Every structure is written in structure tokens, then in C-alpha cells.
């Protein structure tokens, strides 16, 4: 974990950006992905896109968790 990213404004912007991405993927971009072709991993495209973004949401939240000073050992609950 990088100390620069963890605290301060840099870290805060990073976390804010990461938290915004799922909303872009699952709300803003929906009109562009409303189709069934091509199939990816056996799923029609719209469903694949959504599953992908659910997984990416978990990934974003994991990075947010690990860079957030609030979660350091000893940080107040």
C-alpha cells in the first residue's frame, strides 16, 4: 500500500474516482451496451456487461478499502 495514496487528498480523489466508476458502468453506459451480440463467456452481451461490472465494483471497493486510512490497524472504528 502506497502511503501517498493512502492518506491526504490524492488518496481521497482516488477513492472518489473508484467509487464513481460502477455508476458509469451500470447506469451511464447502459444505452451503449443494450445488445445481445457478441456472446462473452456464454452470456449475452448486456448480461455479460452487468456481471463484469458487478465484479469490477467488488474490485473497486477492495482498492478503496486497502487505501483508506480508516481501515488501518488501530484506526478508530
Amino acid at each position, binding site marked *: 500500500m502506497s502511503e501517498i495514496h493512502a492518506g491526504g487528498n490524492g488518496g481521497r480523489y482516488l477513492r472518489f474516482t473508484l467509487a464513481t466508476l460502477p455508476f458509469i458502468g451500470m447506469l451511464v453506459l447502459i444505452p451503449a451496451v443494450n445488445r445481445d451480440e457478441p456472446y462473452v463467456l456464454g452470456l*449475452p452481451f448486456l448480461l455479460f456487461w452487468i456481471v463484469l461490472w458487478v465484479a469490477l465494483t467488488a474490485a473497486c471497493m477492495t482498492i478503496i478499502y486497502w487505501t483508506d486510512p480508516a481501515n488501518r490497524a488501530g484506526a478508530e472504528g
Partner: protein
Amino acid sequence: MNAALPILILFFALAVALGLYARRGKDMDLEQWSVGGRGFGSIIVFLLLAGEIYTTFTFLGASGYAYKYGGASFYILCYGALAYVFSYWLAPAIWRYASKEKLVSQPDWFSKKYKSRNLALVVTLIGVIAMVPYLQLQLTGLGIIIEETSYGTIPRSAAIVLGGVGLAAYVVISGIHSAAWNAVIKDILVLIVVVFIGLYLPFHYFGGIGAMFAEVQAKSPTFLMLHEPSHDTGWFITSILLSALGFFMWPHYFGAIYSSKDAKTFRRNAMFLPLYQLVLLFVFFVGLTAYLVVPGLANGDLSLLRVVRDGLPPAVVGLVGAAGLFCALVPGAMLLTTSATMLAKNVYQEIRPAATDKQVGLVAKLMVPVITLIALYLTFKGGAAIVNLLLLGYAFVTQLFPSMIMSLLHRNPVNKWGAGSGMVVGAVIVAVLTIGAYTVGDVLPFLPSALHHLNVGVPALLANIVVCVLVSLVTRDRSASMQESASRSTAAV
């Protein structure tokens, strides 16, 4: 008699026994009964917060939606994931203040933050109106599940009454603890059952998931996209957004947040809960298989159970029924505990301020059978399809969102008058539009057609915000002095 019946009876007995046993070793005051004495660890909080994913709504509603509307059902996968993004910051903030102020209900929050018990009454009203249909939904679902998976041996009405009585009994005894214990069994059971039938059925009928999708597409080429005008992308996006905003506004979710023993739990859970949503994928597979195998059902909510009965032996059908049973009983226990707490704490205690904590606790327990009876009555009077009811409840609680978020600010520009009138206006608009089956296009015909099928919660929420801001501005001076006197009287109590 078939193999399904003993399995169902066994699991129902287990649920009730666990629910009653959960009380052991606890001194059941109101805080213990309503929010588990704020002592629940990570796993229980995880399961209670994930509980939304696995209700009868998931089991019957999500598969039914996939069966009926195809691609539009995928919205159900999205809103939870987005709600958990909010929860990373929102839930710890709610928890910290609630623990400090010893809050036990959602109206308590508004009562403290806005220093207004009348606002708390409005919130109670909105919450109860949203929760009772949600409880009814669980009971209706339970009845359908038991009737179908017992092959009609246990009639729907008997299952609903038995389920309601068992539920009320263990909630009176154990409160939220009954939900916590049963949540563990429920999630293990549901996880196994849903993944199994979601994979087995497409393979059984079509030889694979891909082959199943191909068949669906051959039958109806655009079924797996947003294809119906009433369920277009505008509807899809706004339904996800509103459900994500409303997610943590459910009063029983506040109860689940209060019950945690620390705030870190929520941040840690926010990493895993989105992935947990993916179990819904298998529910969609079942609904789409049913679309091909048992077409033409008037009630889409039956699709999962019908295709399961068609393709699997009675013993497995019994296990599916048992999983469904838990899906109804666990959220049911949360809903009952929460609504009873609200009525006792934020209505009864308001009317009788002299009541002791013990009396309030007793009234909460007395409210449990009363609410159960109301829900049973509504269940037998009949109702709309499962998803519609849930959407109405969601739209209702979402109206709490603006004033809830504003109350987190250090200097909140919204006052109690603004918060209250905004909520009421929003709730009334949403109720009128939903009950009258109006679309946004009907009431705002000048909008471009792409916006005609927005979720009706959107105009309601916008009106809510506008009213909230305007009323807060107009009543600013007046409320400043009144809030002062209100806080004096609170201090005096």
C-alpha cells in the same frame, strides 16, 4: 405423501426452534430485542445486510421477471452492487451516530437529527406503509412456495397461516436474534440450492447455459435485451438508481446497521457483498429456462417452482421449498421486529411519554401479532404481482433519502418542516402514480419519448427535493426559534 413433505416440515420446525432458541442467555430489553444489543459480529451483519438479495423476491420475483421481461430483469443484479458502494461511507456514519445516541429505530434518527418527534411520526408512517406490503409479500411467497413444493398437499392458505403464526411466535420471543440465527442456515441452503438448480436445469433441458440462451434467442430474438417500450433503457437506469438510493432507507436495514458491534464491518463487507449478488445470475438462468420449458404461465412468479417440479425429483423439490421457506421467514422476522419497534417507540411512547422502557418493550412484543394479522389479512385479500409491490415499497422509502443524507451534514440547511413536507409530497406522488398505473409520459407528455418510461419514483423524488428546499427556506427563521424550544423540551424529558 411424497419425499418433499417431510423435508419441508423438518426445515420449518428447525426454523421455529432456532428462532426460539436464539433468545437463550439474553436479557431481552428493547435494545437487545430490536438491535441485538449492538453486539453482532461481521458475519451476522454481512448476512443480515445481504438478506435483501435472498428474499422470496429473489426466489420468485427475479425468476418471474426474467421469465416475463427477459433482459429487463438484469436491473436486479445492478442496484445492490451500487447500494453497497454507498454503504461503505453511509453505513459507518449511520452506525456511529446511532450507537452514540442509543437509537433503536429509523424514526429515532430523524427525531434526534431534526429534533422533531412529529417528523419521526411521519417517518414511522412511511416506513410501516412500505414494510407491511413487503411482509405480505414474504407471506404470499411462502404460501406459493409451500403449496407448489408440497405438490398441493399443503394448501396455500394453510401454509401462510402456519408460517405467520410460527414467525410471530419466535419474533415475540427473540426479536432480531431469531433472524440472525436463521440467516446462517438460510444463506447456506439458498446458495447450494440456487447454484445447483441454476446450472442443472439448463443442462438438463438444453445441454448447457449457452445452448439455453441460443434457444431463448431463437424463440424471441430481442428477449435478452431491453426490448419492451415499457422497460426501455430509461426505465432500466432510473429503476437501478432509485433502488440503490432506497436500499439503505428500508427501516429494517437501519436496524441491521444498528446491530453491528463496530463500523469497520461495513467497510469490509462492502468488498464482498457485490460479489454475493452474483448468485442472482443463477436465478435468471432458471427463469429463462422456465420461459422455454413451461411457457404461458399467467403468473410469472410461479415459473421457478414449476420448472423445478418439472425437471427434478420430489426430494430436491422439497429442498428448494425449504430454501424458499427460509427466504420468507428471515426477512419476515426483520420486518416484524422493526415495524413493531417503530410502533412502540415512535408512536406508543409519544402518546404516553411517561411509559417506562419495560412498557415500551412489552408494547413492541404485543405489536408483533397485530402486524402479523394485518399482513395476513392483506395477503388473503389478494395483491399485485410480487415485483410491483416491492417497487412501490422501494419508491416509498426512497423518499427518505434526501433528508437522511442532508442530516449527515454538520450544518444541515434542511429543517424539519422541509424534510417532512418533502417526504409527504414525494410519497403521495409515488402512490398516486403507482396505484393509477400512470407512466411519466402520461403526466409529463412534453418530455422526449425516451423519458416516458422513467421510474415513477424519479418525478416524486425531484418534487420531494424541490419542496424540501423551498419549505426549508420559507420556514427558516420560524424553525430556528422552534427548534430551540424543541431542544429545550427534549432536554427536559
